[in-house]
């Protein structure tokens, strides 16, 4: 039992925190958000120089061979900084699909370019009717000679408008919600028939609606076995949820600190409002939520490598429930404890609240994961 980071991990944590402290004050963030792509390419290159963009990839793919703990460290730092860049979309989701499921040729073609910062990926999976059901895929992939024709509409594709390549899920067989019959395809984002509509989301990150109309791809576009990609999707989404849990912990910790500082400095009735027990106890309730979330974020991080997918998902679902509920509690309380200033766009606190709200919904809210746990025997195994 060991909860400590090793020396290399501590070094990684320090260097990313230093970079973000330098480059990511609140004003800089607002400027990045206002750029056409919603983030700063220059900073993205610096991430690449630090090795962050190849963090989980093998060395032969330009990566550094880091594990889930390294991803946790980086995501937590991004959470603190309220980072806007497409790290989750490109490295964790798109990169994750190729890393685990791509052919050697696909990995060689894509991963080194992701690692050096020259290629962005998008994970085009969510559909309008699917809500939180990962296996609900109506987009189709029809055989055409040796290749495939893709048709359908994808929604809420994280950073989809700036992606160079999209990892698209499409059904090759079966009914709309079947777990079998789903394929994953690597599609050039500018291929004929692909149209994208980008927009800003509530948390300042970017999303895109992606339409695929008669998009023809070659045989080399299929990632893995094109009727049996669902376990790969589940695995990569589990990894993404573990990463989001770490990001949420970073955001919750920073927001909690901001709130405690405010309580200590804001004066009313001639005293700091933090001298009132009602407010102190609220700050403690937030702290308890934060620490419980940190505990399950660590558990989720460790369990992403668990070979049994049900056991893996049990831990991930638990973390998603916890961060969903705790993120909401901490976010709402932070606004309340700040009073009016917490309501303003010009104050950083509200932006943490919005990011936490977005994380709470992404890949299923707390109720969705509670229902899954209830159907699958919960967390405490029978004796």
């Amino acid at each position, binding site marked *: 039992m060991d*909860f400590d980071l090793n020396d290399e991990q501590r070094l990684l944590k320090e260097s990313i925190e230093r970079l973000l402290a330098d480059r990511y004050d609140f004003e800089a963030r607002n400027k990045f958000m206002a750029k056409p792509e919603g983030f700063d390419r220059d900073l993205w290159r610096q991430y690449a120089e630090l090795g962050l963009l190849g963090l989980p990839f093998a060395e032969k793919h330009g990566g550094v061979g880091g594990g889930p703990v390294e991803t946790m460290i980086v995501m937590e730092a991004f959470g603190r900084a309220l980072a806007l860049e497409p790290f989750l979309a490109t490295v964790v989701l798109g990169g994750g699909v190729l890393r685990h499921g791509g052919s050697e040729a696909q990995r060689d073609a894509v991963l080194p370019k992701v690692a050096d910062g020259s290629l962005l990926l998008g994970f085009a999976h969510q559909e309008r009717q699917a809500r939180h059901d990962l296996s609900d895929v109506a987009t189709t992939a029809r055989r055409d000679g040796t290749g495939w024709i893709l048709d359908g509409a994808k929604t809420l594709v994280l950073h989809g408008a700036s992606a160079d390549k999209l990892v698209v899920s499409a059904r090759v067989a079966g009914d709309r919600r079947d777990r079998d019959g789903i394929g994953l395809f690597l599609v050039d984002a500018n291929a004929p028939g692909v149209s994208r509509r980008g927009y800003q989301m509530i948390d300042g990150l970017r999303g895109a609606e992606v339409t695929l109309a008669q998009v023809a791809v070659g045989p080399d576009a299929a990632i893995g076995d094109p009727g049996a990609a669902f376990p790969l999707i589940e695995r990569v989404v589990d990894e993404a949820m573990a990463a989001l849990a770490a990001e949420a912990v970073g955001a919750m910790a920073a927001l909690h600190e901001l709130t405690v500082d405010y309580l200590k400095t804001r004066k009313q009735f001639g005293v700091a409002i933090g001298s009132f027990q009602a407010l102190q106890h609220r700050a403690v309730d937030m702290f308890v939520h934060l620490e419980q979330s940190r505990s399950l974020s660590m558990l989720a991080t460790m369990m992403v490598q668990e070979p049994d997918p049900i056991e893996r998902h049990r831990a991930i679902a638990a973390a998603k429930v916890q961060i969903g509920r705790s993120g909401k509690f901490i976010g709402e309380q932070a606004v309340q404890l700040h009073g009016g200033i917490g309501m303003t766009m010009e104050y950083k606190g509200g932006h943490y609240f919005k990011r936490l709200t977005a994380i709470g919904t992404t890949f299923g809210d707390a109720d969705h994961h509670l229902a899954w746990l209830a159907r699958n025997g919960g967390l405490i195994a029978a004796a």
Partner: protein
Amino acid sequence: MDLRFTAEELAFRDEVRAFMRAALPDDIRRKIVDGRHLGKEDIVTWQRILNQKGWAVPHWPVEWGGTGWSPVQQYIFLEEMQQAPAPQPLAFGVSMVGPVIAAFGSEAQKKRYLPRIANLDDWWCQGFSEPGAGSDLASLKTSAKRDGDMWVVNGQKTWTTLAQYADWIFCLVRTDPAAKKQQGISFLLIDMKTKGITVRPIVTIDGGREVNEVFFDDVRVPAENLVGEENKGWDYAKFLLGNERTGIARVGMSKERIRRLKELARMEQSGDRPLIEDERFGAKLAAVEVELKALEMTQLRVVSNEGRRGNRPDPASSILKIKGSEIQQTITELLVEVVGPYALPYQPEYLDDERRNEPPVGPDWGPGLAPTYFNTRKTTIYGGSNEIQKNIIAKAILGF
């Protein structure tokens, strides 16, 4: 970072688990599972089984019977014991007064008391709270005045758990009325058979007889029964309460209760299906499991940090007290929900081996559930109320 137990820790867990299976008498285990009352004999029997194995007081100094286990091993031991489920060892002896005597007592006191605590030859109770001193413990008024080589004690203690069985009581008493609140308090060991002590039961809302009032009327106590230095009792009390909070999360016990809850929810019907398949009930159950899993990891974080803090109590252990007690309460609420209408019959005699003579109204696992729910409200009050724990976190961690 590796959150798995090591191979050695897993082997240790298997050893402890096998011992619990083999050594715990089945009738005692059954009583705990069913939520019936344990008698004094049950607790004594179990303590002596532990003592024979050498596991009565793992956390004590080795020369007085400690096992020298790491904090993680001690955690595993407690967790396995709670999951067995075995009786909780009597905390007032092994977790409270024992460590105080071992740390601050004289050699003569150690020799006289510690082996008898480990074997539960002496049943100890705790004389801290008073009618006017609850969360504000330092305002206590029970006095001890020196008269030759005796202390003369006058006053009243309350909420004294299981004092009806007690041979001894450890008390905080005021020995210097002129000193400021926390100074002027001493830590005194008193034989319950001494003339002038009266024990009066307080019946709790569940109908249980667990707590008492204890009155002291010119009770004469030998001077040698003072622990450590005169007027330093508050320091020893803080040491004692700091030890208490880490043991209070009761993760193993809550796991055992959740297993029981699931077993019962599979038996009970709700409409045309077992209650466990009801979506609203299932979501509530899953929610408490998530809380418990998080608490387990938080506790392990605190435990694995223990070695490096030395003897300083970790204020993060207040989180364990808060969440542990809340989770225990939620589980007892769900147990009452499971039994449904059969929570209503009040059948205290069924919970008591000596008074039980006919089958209960409703299922035989029902009578203990509502009383346990009512009784478990105490967990957010005792051991430093959860509001006091929040004060501790606010001050010691958040810096208010």
